[in-house]
């Protein structure tokens, strides 16, 4: 049972400013059905360039609905200059706080607002394209976004980052990278795990055996969790040819999977110069 404040419950039960605006000046859309929450925000400006009307539609849990509703109340009457200074913390504070694991709902509000302002100013599409390097492939969170959330909210652990923007909340493969980003933003020394040294001077047969073992021990269990699988097709020097099976074969995120889930462990446990290539069956 979540410990929601009365204000969260109030905004969930009686959300303010629900709906759509005809001919809006700015529209921002973030999230997706797959991610479990999504927000569409639109506003209209008056002749003094203030937000005269703002409406939202949200798919999500009680706190996602409440955070969207709170956001619209906060920014109504603001100039865009004022509105773009609104942070996710402002949204959470307006609601008297959100449970830690639900902080990502407040971040979603801020992201939608930014997307809507950008849409108004530049005419860029209302949906945010992922820009920069994607760290969390499960939820599509970029390095820039994680850096910003760590800075804005003074976060210090991977778990906190997951609570605030979902990064690291899926397969967990990016936890090490998130920890590095936190350390970098906070100016602390990075503690990188030493990779296990690969055995030296192995025969090709030993090498193939080691690759098979690593596939079975490190890689397949993770793919199978999502209904996928992988087969080793061939090994040519440092090139490892594999073929995805089942769910992985149709997965749009497969190229990320290839790098993070398949190549990285093979480089760690077999040889650092391995390059994995997908062969279509």
């Amino acid at each position: 049972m979540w410990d929601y404040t009365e204000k969260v419950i109030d905004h969930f039960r009686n959300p303010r400013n629900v709906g759509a605006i005809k001919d809006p000046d700015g529209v921002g859309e973030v999230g997706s059905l797959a991610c479990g929450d999504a927000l569409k925000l639109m506003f209209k400006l008056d002749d003094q360039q203030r937000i005269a009307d703002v409406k939202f539609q949200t798919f999500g849990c009680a706190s996602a609905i409440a955070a969207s509703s709170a956001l619209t109340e906060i920014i109504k009457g603001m100039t865009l200059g004022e509105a773009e200074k609104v942070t996710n913390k402002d949204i959470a504070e307006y609601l008297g706080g959100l449970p830690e694991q639900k902080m990502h709902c407040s971040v979603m509000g801020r992201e939608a607002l930014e997307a809507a302002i950008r849409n108004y100013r530049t005419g860029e599409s209302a949906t945010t394209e992922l820009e920069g390097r994607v760290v969390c492939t499960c939820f599509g969170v970029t390095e820039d976004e994680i850096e910003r959330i760590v800075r804005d909210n003074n976060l210090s652990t991977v778990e906190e980052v997951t609570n605030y923007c979902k990064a690291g909340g899926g397969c967990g493969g990016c936890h090490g990278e998130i920890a590095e980003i936190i350390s970098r933003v906070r100016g602390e020394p990075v503690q990188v795990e030493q990779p296990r040294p690969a055995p030296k001077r192995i025969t090709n047969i030993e090498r193939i055996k080691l690759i098979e073992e690593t596939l079975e021990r490190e890689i397949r269990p993770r793919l199978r969790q999502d209904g996928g699988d992988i087969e080793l097709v061939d090994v040519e020097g440092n090139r490892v040819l594999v073929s995805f099976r089942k769910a992985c074969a149709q997965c749009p995120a497969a190229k990320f999977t290839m790098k993070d889930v398949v190549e990285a462990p093979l480089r760690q446990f077999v040889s650092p110069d391995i390059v994995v290539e997908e062969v279509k069956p």
Partner: protein
Amino acid sequence: MRNVYLDNNATTMVAPEVRDAMTPFFEELWGNPSSIHTFGGQVGKYVEEARERVAALIGADPSEIIFTSCGSESDNMAVRGAVEAAGGYPHIITTRVEHPAVLAICRYLESRGCRLTELGVDSKGQLDLDQLKDSLRADTAIVSIMWANNETGVLFPIDQIAQIVKGAGCILHTDAVQVVGKLPVNVRETPVDMLSLAGHKLHTPKGVGALYVRKGTKLNPLIHGGHQEGGKRAGTENVPYIVGLGRACDLAAVNMKEEMIRVKTMRDRLEDGILATCSDVRVNGDREHRLPNTSNVGFEYIEGEAILLMLDEVGIAASSGSACTSGSLEPSHVMRAMGVPFTAAHGSIRFSLSRYNTDEDIDHTLKHLPQIVKRLRELSPFVQQVGARRE
């Protein structure tokens, strides 16, 4: 406000008869059954009586029943006990839709060096039995496959599974926590080697379970330190709760047939009512092979936690496989294993009934649920897109 409890796969109301049977063991009969004096020793016979009652409900011999603290303990004991009795780092087979009590101990043992096969399921939540056959190996120490799924109610064909596993000479454990008390169970006809059950799913308080262990099954104990339960599970017996479990098994045996028809009728009316009044709804799981009390319904384009909280406002208690309710970010592992589309998994609601539900409960739910779904869909950005596509 009306209190409509439709979350009986989570836990059940304590039956008044069970509570009454337990009371003397808090008031007068609080001795230790292992004591040599009469005051304590006299309690022992009630524990044995309870053991007989539990055994009778599932067709076992009383000596094959070990009392535990909960279903999770029974599951852990079965899997770990069999692996340790086999020695070394043997192979384990389970399914991807097991309760975490089984899945987590299997994965833990895998992290300690055992080999693990997790069988997948199809879109109805059913296993491929040929895949089970192919997965069995000479060093497979245990196969642990649930009888009924807690989220969807889907029943696995445990008789066929037992034939396959026993045919290969392997040990079969089944987590029957959701089945015992709801459907007839007879371990003489269904030759599983071990079977877990939990009291609070059949109207005892939380804190008591049992593991059936077929005579001759090699099993190491989980808890060491005493002679209780034939040396298989140390710890002074939780006498009042064990007695309560015995009484609950009695009640289940007497009432099961008639009640399951009544409960199933209510469940079907609820489900048919939802399908008739709400659009973009799907039933998750195999409708032909299901517990009679469970319905798992996916409401597309809306999110489970929001539905649950609105149901809660009108006094209806249910649960969800949505990510948000569990605190994790991904929807339930069962929904994912079945390949339920995210659109429906996030909005999946489980209704689970018991003999204490009434027709009025169903009326109340069918009165409020369609309005709640409509209200949340008015908030959802996806519904208009869907509508627009259709026009």
